[in-house]
């Protein structure tokens, strides 16, 4: 990694997701690659959900942050492949989600089970109980499902696997 690339990574790790302002676009796995080519910094980002309204805001924030750090000249490009998956969220990102009150995505196999119609266990981010129930597969943003805890009775968001 060149000095410029490492500087860019550290700048980008400060750029927050507009909907979940405790987690950075690097933690979320939105920033795919940062490469220096012939003195130009090339940053590739990927959308989470196709229709996520935050996508454009994130791209603008990335551009603003790179400008503010005087890292010009740079290019920010959107790539579709490999398509974003919740497994691209870093371990520290998952921890920050939970601290913020959003249940982090369970491992991939759990949701495949769910898609086959089997029940899955999602831990309540408030009280830690495993006795929770899905209210709706679709929640407050495209990336979340809506759950409720049967122990502490609090509703909560679950960052669903994609």
């Amino acid at each position, binding site marked *: 990694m060149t000095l410029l690339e490492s500087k860019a990574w550290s700048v980008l790790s400060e750029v927050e997701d507009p909907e979940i302002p405790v987690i950075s676009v690097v933690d979320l796995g939105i920033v795919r690659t940062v490469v220096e080519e012939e003195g130009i910094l090339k940053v590739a980002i990927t*959308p989470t*959900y*196709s*229709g*996520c*309204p935050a*996508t454009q805001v994130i791209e603008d924030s990335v551009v603003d942050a790179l400008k503010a750090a005087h890292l010009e000249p740079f290019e920010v490009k959107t790539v*579709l*492949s*490999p*398509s*974003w*998956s919740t497994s691209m969220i870093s371990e520290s990102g998952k921890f920050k989600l939970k601290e913020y009150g959003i249940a982090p995505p369970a491992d991939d196999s759990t949701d495949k089970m769910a*898609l086959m119609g089997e029940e899955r266990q999602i831990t309540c981010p408030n009280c830690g109980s495993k006795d929770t129930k899905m*209210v*709706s*597969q*679709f*929640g*407050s943003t*495209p990336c979340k499902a*809506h759950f409720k805890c049967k122990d502490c009775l609090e509703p909560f968001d679950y960052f*669903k696997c*994609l």
Partner: protein
Amino acid sequence: MNDNSNRLNVALHLGDNALILGHRISEWCGHGPVLEQDIAMTNIALDLIGQAKMYFDYAAEIEGQGHDHDYFAYRRDVLDFKNLLLCEIPNGDFAYTIARQFYFDQWHFLLLTELSNSEDERLKEIAQKSLKEVTYHRRWSSEWVIRLGDGTPESKEKMQRAIDDTWYYSGEAFIPVDYENGILPIGLKDQWMKNVKEVIEEATLKMPTDEWMQEGGKTGNHTEHLGFILAEMQYLPRAYPDATW
């Protein structure tokens, strides 16, 4: 027709399906039967409109005339649209919306599964991304067919009526048109019938058997409903060209 114009038409066909159905479902925003389902439909609409953007970006690149995705959504007229008729029929009651979504999602899922191995690199990327979202759509609409069909006598009657009336629009997807040749998969109908039948039977409903199907959307021959959608959807960009926030 050359290869490029076929690819352009396919990108528009897929983008138009997503845009028009996305717009239709978004009409439920604020009118859903319960809050959770209002949110579910808005989410599905968002996914579809996001997918439309990806197809239209691709169409713009193939066309190479400096247009962007908004051009394809807002600056074309009825005859230019290539969506399935299924996508444009009105929402009706909740059962009609579910029946339309169910037939579409079952096809869309199979189509994207095949396109995930397409030789067309871009269609492959878009399909791989969209398939993850459509897996959730298909589960949602299938569950509702079962819940309403195997529900109260009233919900059952309404779901059966919606399944029957919408049926005539479900087959167009399987009737190939020239521009699809070699780009879109063929032979999805058997698997679709099998999957649809499974859900309809679990819902204790009767599977429609009529074989005559309405068609024309893929080549620009639409129902009268599309013009009304476009009138609403395109009003602002046509009244105030190049308006920005």
